[in-house]
């Protein structure tokens, strides 16, 4: 099943401006082209992408 950009946005409660859709689609396609490049990236399990600082925002 393919979900369109309109359906995705409306599914999140957003009102979609129909005039935006062609440009939105074009920009989204361009990002997907960039995403294809990361298939070659060696994403290691140990590449921790978020950190959790114990007890607050800073270690004082």
């Amino acid at each position, binding site marked *: 099943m393919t979900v369109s950009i309109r359906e995705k946005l409306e599914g999140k409660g957003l009102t979609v401006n129909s005039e935006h859709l062609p440009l939105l689609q074009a*920009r989204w396609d361009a990002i997907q082209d960039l995403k294809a490049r990361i298939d070659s990236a060696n994403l290691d399990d140990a590449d921790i992408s978020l950190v959790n600082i114990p007890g607050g925002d800073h270690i004082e």
Partner: protein
Amino acid sequence: MNEELIKKPVEELAPLIKNREVSSLELTKAVIDHAESLNEKVNAYVSFRRDEAEKEAEQADREIASGQYKGMYHGIPMAVKDNIYLKDEVTTMSSKIHGEFVSDYDATVITKMRDAGIVFTGKLNMHEYAWGITNNSPHFGAVRNPWNLDKIPGGSSGGSGAGVAADMTTATLGTDTAGSIRIPSSSCGIVGLKPTFGRVSKYGVFPLAWSLDHVGPMTKTVKDAAGLLEVIAGYDSNDPTSVNVPTEPYTSKLTGEVKGLRIGIYEEYYFKNVDSVVEDQVRKAIKTLEEMGAEVVTVNIPALQYAEYAELVTSLSEASTIHHRNLIKRPDDFGDDIRLLFEMGELFSSVEYLQAQQLRRQLKQDFRSAFEKVDVLLAPTLPVMPPDIGSDFADLNGKQVDLIDNFIRFMGPCNLAGLPAMTVPCGLNNGMPVGLQIIGPAFSESVILNTGFAFEQTNPLQGKRAGLTSSVS
């Protein structure tokens, strides 16, 4: 007299104020008169605060007269970007939704600037919510580039860039999430420094993307930037991203000596798809530094190939999260351009966001490896020249290319990796300035400032200025 006075950088004004040859009040009035006179043309300010500024200037003059001189920025008049909160005053973010927003506290940088005796002349125009690079605001009008009023000033700190270039503010602060300090600084021929992530507090600065946002100086000279960084840098427990690393006396580290400095060049990324006129100016600047005794070394940063994707996913996702509720409730109150970006940010999955963060970690590691071989990296700030207001395209060696993609291409990596980066003017092309970008390892602001300072001594713009004059001076 006043025409000459307002052109001066802070480094020249400071001794005049300290020695009471010029009063802060006289300077403040001159800057506001000039800015009010030019604002119809340039549109750099969204609001003036003449009465408050004159009181603050009088206070500064009293303090200086009684021997309580606080330093280089004491009594200096300055406007700030309108996403930085001044207590009990309107901060609009150049938006309709926050058009009447009043903060009940000062941003930490404002507190520090008040403590340094800075006088606030008003708030500066910006791209709506800092989410764009043209400063063509549907709510506050287009900011115009003082070097050529038909051109964009760059953004999102476009009022800041244009304001400094046109002497409408003596110096200022910008914010930078994907180049918003460096883009307008390069486009307007001034110095812009994005410090290391966490070096300057963001408490009381409206966010665009939490993990990418920075606050930093935009000034007429490198020494002015160093002095302003001394004022605003430092740990702040109110900012969850603030980092407790000691600051340095940045101005006293400006020796202008670059003998033995190792300059890194990464041809495959920073010199690929660059307009030839920009490339010529930047390569000339590198040659100049080499002739001054620096050594040029080729480096490799392979993860840069993923940077554009990681930057887009991260910035779009974080920005859309911040504005998610208003995007549902008040979509028509956003400008069309940023509404589209917010809609795009809603499309990414959590896995895509987190993969972008993994790529970001690899990028940091690759930069770290490069900085084991070199002290700084040099690159063009922008690969293309600023286009006319209203255009979504830029000229790249005769081809029309997407403006946003190309303006942020060399910016995003330093936001992702949190590295300090500065732009300094390095030449002119058809009367418009070109910027040289100097990037350093984390917390190396002293090194990149000194590299820029050394280059600045060669007078790359040969004394040329934007050249706008007011009718009052």
